[in-house]
């Protein structure tokens, strides 16, 4: 256990936390959207991210282009996948008891992961593109993480603009607040569900594309992202979209701080215990939000 902590170490940790936090926030926003609009917990969220990572990997291997250019492509592909899933499977459990949607998305997540294992094998893949760090004073900032941070922040910002300013975005927010009223106001709720799911998948795909440059790619890589996205939503408050942003940063910071004082293995335990504690004290998440 590390007892002697310099300001530089602390600074490093804080920066790392913020860098990963934005990524967490963006991915979690997708999950929060589905939860808010359709009241569904998408356990398959992580595997969607994984597919985004693979998309980037294959594009990069085949075309040799800058993997960051594949982000929009991954997003489009995943948007299509999301729409397909919603249209064929998920829409059937939107009004069903929670158990059904949980189990359904659970089934989808298993199917996706194992499909990936069949098609891509579980060999580790990686995208060796942007390695190394920028050194700023006493801090070392991983280049790939900084770019991921920038892109994730931009996409999150765009998402919020979309939700706030565009008609579709407002319709999405209206539906998530009160579906019956939205319907009465003439909003095509079926279409909103479709778009929201697609959007959520796209955000997950973007996350996957960005993370493909940083970590090893394998079919199971998404599972931990599902869990962390839940954590973010809990930290930020269910149904509270700006909360997801704060929750993401918080998670990033907590994780990095924990790994400073504990081994990485235990930092996962810390995250979990944190989750349970928060849910106990504030079942609607740290920043409040609505009851389910």
């Amino acid at each position, binding site marked *: 256990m590390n007892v002697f902590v310099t300001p530089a170490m602390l600074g490093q940790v804080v920066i790392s936390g913020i860098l990963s936090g934005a990524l967490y926030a963006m991915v979690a926003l997708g999950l929060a959207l589905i939860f808010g609009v359709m009241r569904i917990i998408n356990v398959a969220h992580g595997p969607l991210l994984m597919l985004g990572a693979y998309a980037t990997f294959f594009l990069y291997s085949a075309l040799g282009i800058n993997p960051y250019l594949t982000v929009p492509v991954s997003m489009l592909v995943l948007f299509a996948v999301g729409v397909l899933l919603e249209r064929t499977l998920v829409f059937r459990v939107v009004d069903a008891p*929670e158990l059904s949607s949980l189990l359904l998305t659970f*089934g989808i997540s298993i199917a996706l992961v194992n499909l990936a294992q069949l098609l891509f094998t579980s060999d580790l893949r990686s995208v060796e593109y942007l390695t190394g760090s920028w050194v700023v004073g006493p801090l070392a900032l991983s280049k790939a993480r900084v770019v991921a941070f920038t892109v994730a922040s931009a996409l999150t910002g765009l998402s919020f603009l979309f939700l706030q300013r565009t008609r579709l975005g407002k319709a999405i927010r209206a539906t998530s607040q009160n579906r019956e009223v939205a319907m009465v106001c003439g909003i095509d709720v079926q279409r909103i569900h479709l778009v929201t799911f697609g959007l959520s998948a796209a955000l997950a795909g973007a996350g996957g594309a960005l993370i493909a440059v940083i970590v090893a790619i394998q079919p199971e890589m998404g599972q931990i992202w599902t869990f962390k996205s839940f954590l973010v939503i809990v930290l930020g408050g269910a149904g509270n979209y700006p909360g997801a942003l704060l929750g993401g940063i918080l998670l990033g910071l907590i994780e990095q701080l924990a790994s400073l004082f504990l081994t990485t293995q235990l930092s996962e335990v810390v995250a*979990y215990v944190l989750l349970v504690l928060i849910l106990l004290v504030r079942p609607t998440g740290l920043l409040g939000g609505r009851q389910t």
Partner: protein
Amino acid sequence: MSPRPAALAALAAVTLALAVYPEFGTGYGVRSTLQVFMWIVLASSWNLISGLTGYVSFGHVAFFGAGAYTGAILIAKAGWPWGLAALAGGLGACVLALAIGYPCLRLKGPYFAIAMLGLNEVLRALVSYFEDLTGGGNGLSLPTLDATVPIYYVMGASALLVTLVTYVIITSRFGLRLMTIREDEVAAEAMGIDTARHKLYAFLLSAAGPGVAGALTARDQGYIEPISVFPLATTITMIVMVLFGGKGTVWGPVLGAVVLFVAQEIVWARYPYVHPLLFGVIIIAVVLLMPRGVLGLLQIRYRLPRTI
């Protein structure tokens, strides 16, 4: 509402047949049947919490693993006889269930599922961390002992016991109260039912079986490591078995365990990656097309008693 004599006679016959099977069955046959017993214990236990109360436990294999490690450590490090170690495994799993259940069962449905999802990973991390005790990633070896046949009997008895307990619960008002939690928790509470306590009891009961089964399996295999006792595949299989057979029924989990295990052995063991994929597809199919499972469907269609 006592069961018909014909049904009891059939059950007695089957039990007798299984009891004498080791005498003339092959080693493979005995091991396989032992595995079926194990799945019956797991599936029926999962049914107690998730089938009856509707609180979906996604990390239930954690209790299997906890029991396995408790039993293995007691056998390997403290020289306990495996019978006692198995009981301790069940107890250890219950303690874990109390620690996790007390806080987590307060959470409403989806949040409970989220919390349980992470449990598995956390336990695996903890096992790796406390290496001295658990052997960490290298696993834990038990002194060699060929006890497959006695373990067959104990596991079989456990399967019988869990099924019996399920029957008793479902025919009791305690069981009815558990079901009201699934039907409408708010109304149940308004009617004076202490849902928190009931959920906890069901949860504890549902952890004991897997705990014992875990310890027995550890003894039988002679070796355990984190990946072998905390695999997500086990939770998935448990869930599919119950969903397929009929959640909330007595024999549904048993039916699911037998059918899916047999199918798995015959067909899918040859294609290791297709088999979990198929499970995923089955979950999707069952949730969409047959959410009550085979027995659940029959129950509704032919107005069968709840003790099916």
